[in-house]
């Protein structure tokens, strides 16, 4: 009798749980999971904005493989993702080590350096465009008139070859507060007696960093690298709004799917290829670096 009542209570509890989560789960299913499968289907169709789509097998994939712009986008993406991931992680580490020391006005400084991460992308891209503006921008003033590094003023952000460096710097600037915060919270959790013991043994600063700090933050660094890799790989707005000259894969997909001769079938195919590359990398990374 008791067992039976326990059973119905458990069933009632389960029903209550499902009732509460059903709205959230169904809307996530409908608007995130279903679209991912629908995207796979779309990549095999000639997608039209008006009228029915026609099945064309692997034609979309054949088209994009033959397109040299696609391969250039793959290369640009790898340069961008590699440089931004490494850059953000290292800058974040350096800043975290500095901010872990005590100094006057530390609270204010900690607050100020979060600004890039908090501000909306659209609100900061124009300022960056102005800084690299060939006519009025302070960057050209500094490098040409003051330091004489460049012989003349030129449009750094407007040329496809150079704009990628500005985009990388921008990404590092925007996202280093995130890595810095993650690393700092781990640094503050390290037991201070380790360092005291090392001091007694006469360890140098570098030795303390190498033998105490680094092993302690190894896993958080590993997690940061994978998160930053995933997010930088999928970045669209931070590239596209700053300069349309840097065609990483997501920007290329956007151009294919929503501008000019709209080819949403091909766009879906590129998005899927991008996703498969990402999953492949994650599996490799989790096995080799995080050793799970």
């Amino acid at each position, binding site marked *: 009798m008791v067992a039976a009542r326990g059973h119905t209570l*458990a069933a009632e*509890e*389960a029903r*209550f*749980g499902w009732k509460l*989560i059903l*709205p*959230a*789960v169904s*809307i*996530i299913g409908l*608007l995130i999971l279903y*679209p*991912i499968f*629908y*995207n796979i289907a*779309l990549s095999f169709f000639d997608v039209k904005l008006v009228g029915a789509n026609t099945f064309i097998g692997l034609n979309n994939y054949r088209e994009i493989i033959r397109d040299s712009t696609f391969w250039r986008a793959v290369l640009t993406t790898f340069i961008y993702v590699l440089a931004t991931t490494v850059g953000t992680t290292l800058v974040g580490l350096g800043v975290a080590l*500095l901010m872990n*020391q005590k*100094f006057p006005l530390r609270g204010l*400084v900690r607050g*100020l*350096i*979060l*600004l890039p991460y*908090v*501000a*909306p*992308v*659209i*609100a900061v891209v*124009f*300022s*960056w465009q*102005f*800084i690299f503006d060939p006519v*009025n921008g*302070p960057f050209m003033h500094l490098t040409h008139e003051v330091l004489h590094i460049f012989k003349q003023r030129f449009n750094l952000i407007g040329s496809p070859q150079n704009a990628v460096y500005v985009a990388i710097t921008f990404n590092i600037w925007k996202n280093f*507060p*995130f890595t810095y915060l*993650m690393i*700092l*919270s781990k640094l503050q959790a390290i037991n201070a007696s380790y360092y005291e013991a090392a001091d007694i043994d006469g360890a140098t600063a570098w030795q303390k960093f190498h033998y105490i700090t680094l092993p302690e933050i190894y896993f958080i660094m590993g997690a940061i690298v994978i*998160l930053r890799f995933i*997010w930088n790989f*999928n*970045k*669209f*707005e931070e590239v*596209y*709004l700053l300069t349309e000259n840097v065609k990483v894969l*997501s920007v290329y*997909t956007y151009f294919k*799917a929503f501008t000019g001769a709209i080819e949403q079938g091909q*766009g879906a195919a590129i*998005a899927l290829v*991008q*996703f498969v590359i990402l*999953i492949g990398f*994650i599996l490799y990374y989790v096995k080799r670096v995080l050793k799970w």
Partner: protein
Amino acid sequence: MVVRRKSILKSTGFALLVLLIVFFAVFPFVEMLSISLKHPFDWGNPSLIPRLLNLEAYKELLAIGQTEREVPESIKNLLDNPDLTSQQRKAILKKFQDTGDVFPFLRYFGNSFLLSFSAALLSLILATLGAYSFSRVRYRGRSAIQRGVLFVYMFGGILIVIPLYQMAVKSGLAATALGAFLSILIIYMVLTLPVSMYMLGNYFRTIPFSIEEAAMIDGCGRFATILRIIVPLSLPALITVFIYAFMIAWNEYLFASVFLKAFKNLYTLPLGLKELFGSKHLIWDRIMAGSMLTAVPVVIMFMLVQKNLTGGLTAGGVKE
């Protein structure tokens, strides 16, 4: 003596490094503020302090004192034409004096606010129920759901924007202004839902279950317990999650540009600013003033919840 000189050198180097980092982080904002207050002749001047203060850009964007705007000479001549009826005259004057069409900044601001506020509120309601469910109620599959929610971390917007747009086109939603607005509202809600649920779930677990039990013994139903016990006790977390969701929607560009492209009246701030300023570079003061006014609400909101939000950031990592 040697030791002291070394330590002075060290602390100077340290201070310089800190200054360098602050400069790196803040310079674009200072430049933004500076240009927004400068007259065009001053733009090329690398000094950050304007030679002459220019508040016109802010006034124009916020539509302050724009009624007595100068009407061009040629239009004045046209207005003197006695053949015009007073109605026509008014229409012409209105066309030239109404800057709302040139810089509909306030409209974009309003659209963004309405959209972000409603999306964040809806997301908060669904997330509260969902998070309570998997953090408090016992049933099979709840941990699978909880982990599945984080799986969404791996998807960028670009992967689902094409299929979502196709769904909206095929269902007819993309064709009308109301349909497009509703689509974007639901999309913004779902974008923030997984992380909101995760953050709230973590918070709910810190509330002792015995408080809820006491309420239930006193005759509170389970749903009433959520409303009367959980919600008041988690107010700081709820506010943090609301602001997080608000910021995500306020900053979003990709989906807005796809769904709202055809409906100029519904443009959000990111979309509107990109359209207004994307191709023009001769109005830097307006561009920078617009940027400032877009950033300020978000920065203020962040300041309000900084402590909670940075805690949440480091605890789970907030999806971008």
